[in-house]
């Protein structure tokens, strides 16, 4: 995935879309104040400079699906592992809730179901049948909308054709009004995401940690 920070307006549509698509529960104001909100993608907001020269910067952060993910070797039950397609998978059924993966993740993008997820009526009508519901005590995180990836792959196979670039859009990318989020196949050098990842504006978040994240953040160099 490529995230263009120069296009991001901080509107938060990606967050809402992710909640809707992936059956992420809202935890309530009290729990959110205690730091237990479960935003698989979050928009970090930073203020730079002193008034009146204040600038606001937004950075959407989701699971980076690192190629050398520190969350994977530490999971005792293989609930967190790397798929052959390069995604970091989270298997809810295999998770026993040690929360080691969340500690190991430098991006803090892994979340724990502290209570049994609730959807107060009528929100239960909005649940996505393609995504399993999690129970209390398991970890969850951004999957790059693996249900959409699987659906598109199955469709392409049924139609006996290759996947097109741009055919798979995770919920966040689909909802973004300024097209800041671009998703695609990094193995295809001609895809949008590959070209954007090679851009001179591109950096990796916490790249020096050696996690080999797959998300490239594009940002114009500014002074100061």
């Amino acid at each position: 995935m490529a995230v263009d920070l120069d296009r991001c307006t901080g509107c938060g549509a990606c967050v809402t879309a992710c909640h809707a698509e992936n059956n992420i529960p809202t935890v309530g104001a009290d729990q959110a104040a205690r730091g237990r909100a479960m935003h698989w993608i979050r928009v970090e907001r930073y203020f730079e400079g002193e008034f009146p020269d204040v600038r606001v910067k937004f950075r959407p952060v989701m699971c980076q699906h690192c190629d050398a993910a520190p969350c994977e070797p530490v999971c005792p039950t293989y609930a967190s592992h790397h798929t052959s397609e390069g995604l970091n998978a989270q298997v809810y059924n295999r998770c026993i809730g040690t929360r080691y993966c969340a500690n190991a993740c430098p991006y803090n993008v892994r979340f724990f179901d502290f209570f049994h997820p609730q959807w107060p009526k009528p929100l239960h009508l909005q649940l996505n049948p393609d995504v399993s519901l999690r129970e209390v005590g398991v970890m969850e995180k951004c999957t790059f909308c693996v249900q959409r990836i699987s659906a598109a792959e199955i469709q392409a196979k049924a139609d006996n054709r290759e996947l097109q670039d741009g055919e798979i859009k995770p919920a966040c990318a689909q909802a973004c009004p300024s097209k800041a989020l671009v998703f695609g196949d990094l193995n295809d050098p001609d895809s949008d995401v590959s070209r954007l990842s090679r851009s001179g504006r591109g950096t990796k978040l916490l790249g020096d940690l050696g996690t080999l994240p797959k998300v490239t953040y594009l940002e114009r160099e500014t002074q100061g």
Partner: protein
Amino acid sequence: MTAIYALYSDPDHVQRAVDNLRAAGLHDRDIVVISSEPIEEYEFSARDKATWLFYAAGFGGVVGLVFATWLTTMTQKAWPIVTGNMAIVAWWPNMIIMFELTMLGAILATVITMLVAANLPKRGPKLYDPEVADGKILVGIENPPSTSVQSIERALLSGGVARLKKIGARP
């Protein structure tokens, strides 16, 4: 089970009794010395010292090592799952498992061998006297052949202050 034994207060007398029993023609393995604590400084206690226990521990360790190597490499290869860009058969963490199971194997082998060698748990009739718990040392023969009873008694009594006791059928 029949037995003839005597109780002594002093290990010097025990040594003399054991020597007398040997002179009376009894084998070392037939002479039983029982005490409530180990007595290291005398010859009579050195008879059974040689042991295979250290080799047993080493063997148990090797078994543990082989098992651990097999367990880790077999399971990692059986369902190869990529985690964190690490090798499928990851030797660094496997070595930790191998170390732990080696030590576990050595420990278990030691204890099992010790229990077997010491003949524990021992059920059924055995040569013992409650006065041993008060510090007396027991020297005796289990199942003595009837012809030797007289010479055994002489050997035990000549050891000095002693009380002679018998268990079981009397000749």
